């Protein structure tokens, strides 16, 4: 994609020198540099963006990660860390002159501390594998991104991943205790502790969601929570998305924080129903899935309260899953929403804005208008409890210019989210994808502050260059195309 070239982050890496240096610290099968071996690494979950790295390093020990970092630091070579490669914003998109550092071989669960309710794992361990390993102790790891079968915990930390249970249980940042991180200089440091806090600045919060820009995560200690005695899910149908939105506010006003609260619009409902036959009411304009969990007694109290609220909020139908199997079926439709859309459209593009929930009608209307303007259909999936919206734009990459139109449309959705007081990314990260929208979200001085923070950890700018935080020049370039209210953003910069 020409619009995402690396012209700002050009490095002059000598491949043979790099390969020879890495050979001394890595086994033969841990170092790839022939182009046919590199292609599996050319993209992450955002497959529209592709780039071959110069070299792929797949170390097995922390000491090797330290060696790779020392070599890259010495030779001035960029490093892009990669976990399972399921990220949706191009955060693990390789650098053409750099090392793609795969943490895929770090897949051991090192310790489950049942007394202190924590698990220490290597970064390549899959999210769901932690909960599976802890299940026999009736404990689990709460954050559950939809990709939890495949995504790894290191990537979850790098992106501050969420999931469908964030409203009650928080994001990754709320559910980790300690990290071991290798700096660009190759030093191994411990951040956080086994206690609930640590001395000094909250580097644990800073590192979480930093998208591989500040260090490489080589070990993670997560909090485990007691598995709820019972979880129960309600499905409510609405003939109007606005009514569904107010129902969410009414549940929260009643003092109930559901474990999960998801909304799907008509197109998502229909696609999901055709795909997994979850029994969704396909004539509804929107459905809400509301899960409450806790002790038996608490769930009983809350489920009847929520049912009444949904009915009085105008639901045309409210169903309670009669058993765990039906509960799983209700969720299956939601969790399969993305692949379901993939069945009805050659390609789809997933957006990730968050908005204050009260602006849902405005934003949905805005998306509808943009959808007709661009002639591209949109299916909406919404983490309704926490305001995180996933509009899926349906397009066909084989139609010339359609991807570019889709990207532009997506960018406008994100700008709309910012306008109503929201954000361009709730849980997928900025990566390469939303780098231009960062110019809309932040002012010059704020972006400069981000760059100064990056400099504090990585003075040479070798860690994941060109991602997450745009340069001011990039914003000037982008801003020149997006003039709001006759004012040029970033007026202090020259135009080109």
């Amino acid at each position, binding site marked *: 994609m020409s619009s995402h070239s690396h012209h700002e982050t050009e490095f002059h890496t000598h491949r043979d020198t790099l390969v020879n240096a890495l050979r001394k610290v890595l086994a033969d099968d841990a170092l790839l540099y022939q182009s046919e071996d590199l292609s599996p690494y050319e993209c992450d979950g955002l497959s529209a963006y592709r780039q071959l790295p110069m070299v792929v390093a797949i170390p097995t020990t922390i000491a090797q990660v330290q060696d790779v970092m020392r070599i890259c630091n010495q030779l001035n070579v960029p490093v892009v860390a990669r976990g399972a490669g399921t990220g949706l914003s191009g955060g693990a998109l390789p650098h053409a002159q750099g090392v793609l550092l795969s943490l895929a071989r770090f897949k051991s669960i090192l310790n489950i501390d049942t007394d*202190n*309710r924590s698990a220490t794992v290597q970064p390549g361990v899959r999210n769901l594998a932690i909960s599976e390993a802890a299940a026999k*102790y*009736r404990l689990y790891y709460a954050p559950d991104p939809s990709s939890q079968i495949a995504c790894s915990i290191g990537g979850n930390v790098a992106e501050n991943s969420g999931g469908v249970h964030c*409203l009650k249980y*928080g994001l990754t*940042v709320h559910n980790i205790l300690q990290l071991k991180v290798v*700096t660009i200089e190759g030093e191994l*440091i411990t951040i956080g*502790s*086994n*206690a*609930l*806090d*640590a*001395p*000094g*600045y*909250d580097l644990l*919060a*800073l590192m979480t*969601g*930093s998208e591989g820009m*500040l260090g490489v995560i080589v070990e993670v200690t997560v909090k485990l929570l*007691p598995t*709820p005695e019972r979880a129960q899910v309600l499905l409510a149908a609405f003939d109007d998305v606005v009514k569904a939105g107010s129902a969410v506010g009414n549940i*929260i*006003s009643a*003092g*109930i924080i559901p474990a999960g609260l998801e909304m799907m619009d008509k197109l998502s409902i229909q696609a999901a129903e055709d795909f997994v036959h979850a029994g969704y009411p396909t004539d509804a304009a929107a459905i809400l899935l509301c899960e409450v969990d*806790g*002790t038996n*007694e*608490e769930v009983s*109290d*809350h489920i009847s309260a929520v049912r009444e609220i949904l009915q009085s909020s105008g639901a045309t139908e409210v169903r309670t899953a009669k058993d765990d199997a039906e509960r799983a079926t209700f969720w299956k439709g939601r969790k399969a929403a993305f692949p379901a859309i993939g069945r009805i459209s050659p390609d789809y593009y997933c957006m990730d804005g*968050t908005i*204050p929930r*009260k602006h849902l009608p405005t934003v949905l209307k805005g998306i509808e208008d943009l959808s007709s303007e661009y002639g591209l259909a949109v299916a909406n999936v919404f983490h309704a409890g*926490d*305001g995180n919206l996933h509009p899926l734009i349906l397009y066909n990459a084989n139609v010339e210019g359609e991807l570019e139109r889709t990207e532009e449309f997506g960018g406008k959705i994100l700008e709309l989210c910012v306008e109503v*007081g*929201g*954000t361009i*990314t*709730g*849980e*997928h*990260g*900025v990566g390469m994808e939303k780098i231009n929208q*960062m110019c809309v979200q*932040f002012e010059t001085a*704020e972006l400069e*502050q*981000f760059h*100064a*923070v990056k*400099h*504090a*950890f990585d003075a040479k700018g070798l860690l994941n260059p060109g991602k997450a935080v745009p340069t001011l020049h990039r914003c000037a370039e982008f801003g020149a195309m997006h003039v709001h209210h006759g004012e040029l953003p970033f007026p202090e910069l020259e135009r080109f």
Partner: protein
Amino acid sequence: MGLNINEDISQSLQERVSAAMNSKTALKIVGGNSKAFYGRETDGEILNVSGHSGILNYEPTELVATVRAGTKLSELQQALSAQGQMLPFEPPHLGESATVGGTVATNLSGPRRPFGGAVRDHVLGVKIINGKGEILHFGGEVMKNVAGYDLSRLMAGAMGTLGVLLEVSFKVNPVAENELTLYRNCSIDTAITTMNEWASRPYPISGGVFDGENLYIRFSGSENAVEAARKKFGGDELEDANNFWLRIKEQQHAFFGGDAPLWRLSLAPASPHILLPGKTLVDWAGAQRWYKGEANADDIRQAAQKSGGHAVMFRGGDRDQAFQPLDPVVMRLHKNLKQAMDPNGILNPGRLYAQL
């Protein structure tokens, strides 16, 4: 909705910081001055932010409140309480004048912390003045937001050394319908084990304290959930329980009396009791131990580290060494970060560590 919004003095605060940056004059940031005793001392020109006050936006159905840093903590809590909501981290005031800014800067959380999260967990966004005199926004008013580095949570516990807080947006929660505190007499070892056993089960626990005599467990939830917990846990119901938790949180319980230094030990929750000369009160269901005694500082710190955590000299000891020393590489990163936010080192220099 907004409440008690006073004059916006952010511009004059900004001018003060800019002038201080140019003249390299240290500033001592003061809100309610209720936590002046805490941490290391700093002696710059006073920058009083208590006049910058008011609840700018409180949306109960969005579970968000945005407040100026000089707002009194009690004022915010009253506004939340009127809507059946609360700050889930149950912050200690440690003085009537406590402000929102000081609460965030110290990141001190009350007994609900292990179950409801800390101050830092509920910071959604901030508006600050950095050491260059620039007004900056990070985060926002939404719960999920991963745009840019998380510089808002970084403010929590930074003791004002990275920026002057102007506004903070908090995630708030509903108050539980019912609360019940049960207690029973036991040893400290039994108390620690019992707290952790209970915290390992899916019961609606919101506090666990051992005060030297009794184990107290607080339950918060729906009526039937709390009643079920009463049957399972046994023990006696504590009358006037709100007052008990308040005295723990505000350090008014008899344990906190006397002149011996008070230490805060933050440990892995199931860590066995650390035997030191003096007395111990267990809070945070085992994860926070208050120690009052004359033990040697190094011994206290080593013991805390062995139990997966760290120790803070909270009151009555050597303030110069209030916080656990950092690993040299981690300290280097701290210094770099301080330099990035406050290049001339004018904001509360030395308040957290001598080098920052």
